[in-house]
């Protein structure tokens, strides 16, 4: 289809929007409410363009191109309209940017600069609204909300949680929970996908840097830190590295520079998780009990099941998540080994996830009267700390993590991407079933960003029907099918965030697909380069079992590494 954009004739496939057409013609059009793959909402009006012969400006996100269409993306009229809209928006937006969490990463701020908004054309009419700090994971400041609706759509359409929606009308409109209560009273699963798409500082993670700094300054504390598999391939982006750069060693070095005494990798406990979970799978398949087995690493997914599908609680693997396993091992294994009083240990985790903050505070996550984890920082918070210490990440020499909880297989590294847990679990399960370790299973059917990936594998005559899911709307589809008896599976991997932890709610803001793909590729590259590619080959894990846990699913394992969840209510 031939169209003309800014007097330039281009050929485009039919059926695409003006916005997409412009994108492929390398013309940027600003947007504030647009979200890839979702039905355009048309609420921000920022992407308006002029079309020859049309009386009104049209929104490029919701208008399809037609043969011969003449589009002007940056005519005077268009720019004036965009600027007016933005100025209107700013008339009801706090402009104390210096004090905002999103200062320098705010889309509204960026647009204002782009469009040259430098004086106040409309009188300031800020409607102050109460800040909601009730959630352990997220803070909502509705005064900063521009009502673009991205969070609402992500929560409703991508996650099918619908914890937040609009209330009231006109300029009183507000995004909030049912009955305008705190987020902690809602059915919010803390995934933080809303924060990922929020163009302003209206939804951000609850910041725990202060707690960590206090612990670092406390001479009586031994501050240990673990970082999740997905962090090393995303942190770099916040320091100018190319998306997909692995900064594992530099990060470890930076953590030591800031004063963390011991740096561990959550990948270690991911290997332990695989040992436990693969054994659980083989056990359940043999007994035919509580199938399908559903993974339990993703705390948003756990809360989702508790709220919406309590009938599947028994199907969840009883394994704690790797974060919590690591926490329990640090205070109950490593501390004793090191002759440190576990009460003096302050255990920090760096996670790609806001729900991990909630998980760390769960009552199920207390072992022997001590919380497994004391503080959770997201990738973004870690970057802020590194900035605070004026550390130049690029110039640091890579360092190795501490032993013994720093060793990991590359299977554990795959926990960061959708399909990774299933792939890691099957590598070990295959060994458990066949005792044959000759081949590495690279399961390419799992290796993309699709929301639902089914695969049937047969290992030594045992057929396993598996499905890998990311994004809870997809989980809902599959669970409903299981409930209706349409589908049967043995093993289900679920990651709350579409794409997995590499696109988790604690990662650098934005859900740009190219970046997510680069991160995924980086993880698979790490796996390819690694010598130890199976969890049961991790020597320190083997040692852990020999000297402490005895064997997977042992009584000790159950005490420290397993738990159980209860149904939950809430709107």
């Amino acid at each position, binding site marked *: 289809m031939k169209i003309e954009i800014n007097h330039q004739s281009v050929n485009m496939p039919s059926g695409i929007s003006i916005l997409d057409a412009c994108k492929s013609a390398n013309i940027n059009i600003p947007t504030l409410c647009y979200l890839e793959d979702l039905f355009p909402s*048309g609420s921000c009006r920022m992407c308006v363009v002029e079309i020859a012969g049309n009386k009104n400006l049209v929104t490029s996100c919701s208008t399809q191109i037609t043969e011969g269409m003449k589009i002007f993306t940056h005519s005077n009229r268009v720019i004036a309209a965009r600027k007016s809209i933005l100025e209107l928006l700013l008339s009801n937006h706090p402009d104390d940017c210096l004090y905002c969490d999103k200062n320098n990463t705010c889309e509204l701020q960026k647009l204002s600069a782009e469009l040259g908004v430098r004086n106040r054309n409309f*009188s300031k009419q800020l409607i102050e609204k109460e800040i909601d700090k009730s959630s352990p994971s997220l803070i909502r400041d509705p005064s900063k909300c521009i009502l673009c609706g991205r969070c609402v759509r992500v929560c409703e359409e991508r996650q099918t949680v619908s914890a937040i929606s609009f209330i009231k009308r006109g300029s009183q409109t507000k995004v909030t929970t049912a009955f305008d209560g705190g987020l902690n009273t809602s059915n919010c699963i803390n995934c933080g996908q809303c924060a990922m798409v929020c163009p302003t500082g209206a939804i951000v993670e609850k910041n725990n840097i202060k707690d960590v700094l206090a612990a670092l300054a406390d001479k009586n504390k031994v501050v240990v830190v673990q970082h999740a598999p997905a962090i090393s391939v995303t942190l770099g982006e916040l320091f100018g590295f190319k998306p997909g750069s692995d900064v594992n060693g530099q990060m470890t070095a930076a953590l030591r520079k800031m004063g963390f005494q011991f740096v561990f990798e959550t990948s270690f406990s991911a290997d332990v998780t695989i040992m436990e979970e693969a054994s659980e799978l083989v056990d359940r398949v043999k007994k035919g009990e509580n199938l399908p087995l559903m993974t339990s690493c993703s705390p948003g997914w756990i809360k989702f099941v508790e709220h919406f599908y309590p009938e599947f609680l028994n199907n969840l693997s009883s394994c704690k998540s790797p974060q919590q396993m690591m926490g329990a091992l640090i205070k109950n294994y490593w501390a004793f080994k090191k002759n440190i009083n576990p009460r003096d240990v302050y255990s920090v985790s760096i996670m790609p996830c806001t729900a991990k903050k909630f998980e760390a505070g769960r009552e199920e996550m207390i072992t022997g009267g001590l919380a497994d984890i004391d503080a959770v920082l997201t990738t973004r918070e870690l970057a802020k700390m590194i900035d605070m210490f004026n550390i130049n990440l690029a110039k640091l020499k890579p360092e190795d993590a501490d032993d013994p909880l720093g060793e990991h297989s590359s299977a554990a590294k795959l926990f960061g991407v959708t399909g990774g847990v299933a792939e890691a679990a099957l590598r070990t399960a295959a060994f458990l079933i066949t005792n044959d370790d000759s081949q590495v299973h690279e399961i390419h059917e799992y290796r993309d960003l699709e929301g639902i990936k089914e695969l049937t594998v047969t290992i030594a005559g045992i057929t396993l029907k598996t499905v890998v899911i990311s994004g809870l709307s997809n989980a809902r589809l599959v669970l409903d099918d299981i409930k209706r008896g349409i589908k049967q599976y043995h093993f289900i991997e679920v990651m709350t965030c579409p794409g997995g932890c590499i696109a988790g709610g604690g990662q650098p803001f934005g859900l740009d697909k190219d970046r997510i793909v680069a991160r995924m590729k980086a993880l698979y590259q790490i796996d390819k380069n690694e010598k130890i590619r199976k969890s049961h080959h991790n020597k320190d894990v083997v040692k852990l079992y020999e000297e402490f846990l005895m064997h997977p699913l042992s009584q000790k394992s159950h005490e420290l590494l397993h738990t159980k969840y209860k149904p939950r209510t809430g709107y």
Partner: protein
Amino acid sequence: MNNGLPSIENYLIGSNLEYFNSCLLPEVSNPTSEDIAKKIETLKNDTVDKPYFFIGAGTCGLGAGALHTEKALIGVLKNINVDYEIIKVGCIGLCFAEPILDIFLPGKNRISFGNVTSDKVESMVKALLQEDEKVLCQALFQYRSKDLKVWENVPFMEDYPFFKKQKRIVLNQCGIINPLSIGQYVAHNGYLALAKTLKELTPLEVCTIIEKSGLKGRGGGGFLTGKKWKFALNTPSDQKYFICNADEGDPGAFMDRAVVEGDPHKLLEGLIIAAYAIQATKAYIYIRAEYPLAIAHLEQAISDLYAWKILGSNIFDSGFDLDIIIKKGAGAFVCGEETALIHSIEGKRGMPRPRPPFPAVSGLHGKPSVINNVETLANISAIILMGCEWFNSMGNNNSKGTKVFALSGKIKNTGLVEVPMGITMREIIFDIGGGPKNDKLFKAVQIGGPSGGCVTNENLNIEIDYDSLKTIGAMMGSGGLVVMDEDNCMVDVAKFFMDFIQRESCGKCIPCREGTKQMQNILEKITRGRISEKGNDALDRFKGILQLEELSNTIKETSLCGLGQSAPNPVLSTLKYFRHEYEAHIFDRRCPSGVCSELINFEIIEDKCKGCTLCAKKCPSGAIKGSPKAPHYINNEKCIKCGQCLKICKFGAIIKN
């Protein structure tokens, strides 16, 4: 027999006809066609064998005390011990004359009286029963009949000034027949059009007839109804929906309410035909919950239709199935916008979405859906029966048929009128409406509600149709006409509509949500006195007009839905015709009509003031000073413009500027 129209027997045969007749005449088993004809004659109420009383009991009638009138009437009739019948009817359109009581005596024409409050019932009824002619001067009009006795000196309905220039298709039975009697509706050729449609016409033929008739959507959009139906008919789908939009939300509009209350079957017949035309098997009526009487009438009518097997499966043995569901709206103005309405039916928040896809392609639950408003659908049965040429012959070049308007505001005859398209605004306001109340000077009439504009004196001769109204910055809208006289301040009017839009904006798109808030704020500033001014307000007001125009432009050009795109219209239109009023507010701090209270100045005329001190004592802000028996004066800085002094001064010494 039916005014040259065929009888329903031409379409229904066998068991269908038998069942239909048994519904019409349940008292007789196996009725003959003579029995049926007789029953239809009785149901028609063309003649009566005992006194019949018809009380206007629409919402307007009830508000004026129709139930008290009914109670008084029953009391009177009990005392004089006659056999009688009381029928509650809907609104005939003369809302200003409610409660209306029609009296139909055997052998005489049905005669209509207005303002029959309960205290007047006894004398009136007794006088009329005794044929005391003196009471006739109170009558409004009488109905014409073939051979009943005519009341002397009482005009016939069609000669009565209010009705003289009207052409009633939609309203022809409102206020006349019993809205709760399906039998009576059937006796007046009801469901004949449906039978004809289902038995003789294909869906495509129905669409074509409606398209050829030139009927345009009466909700304000003005899109060709038949064309819209064709889109939906031609979109293949396993399920289609028809939706009737009865979410009438414009301030001063009550056309749909009157139709649903007064003649629900007319709407339902149109709806069933329309659903057939697009092959929808489920229809929704989205009606606002603030219309309880209309909802009750609809519920009754729908349950009667199921009992008569005119709804449900295999209607009239045609193979066509339809269910109608009433969905009550919670009173959000924006839910009149079709995509917002669809969201609301789906149980979501009523917010519009970008179009395309249009609902005719992807509407309710993603299925092809057509949405028409009440008045549009109420035209359908007449077009099917009388033909598209008949309908097309009414109106002018671009607009065919009739339009119902609700007259309100400062006009003598408030009420509902139905006029042929192409009539002038002057005829509606002055010939039908009687002009402004208390013979004040006419200033303007707001047409099209908060999305429309005003028509001023100079444009009163404009022909009313979809296109010509646009040329003067107004629009047809759904049919609310709010008349304003010399006492109305046009800045205040614009402010009222801006307040309304701001409250009712769904909050989705920025220009509408924030832009209307800014416009409202500017209007506030313009109408504010020094007393409540803050910060830069005094400076800002000088930028007022310029900013209003700029904002209007942005909002019009970039808003998501029709509500937003038309939100600035009341401001633009008043700015166009009454710029001098804005300027008086801004530059002189003066409200020429004396409405904007903060801009009013009270003054004491020295010569007239006797120094009685009453005003000084009553003034709540201590703004009046003076010694007893000497002229007082008002300190305007302190005055809070409450007007107490003006009200209590016995000497007329205080004036309002």
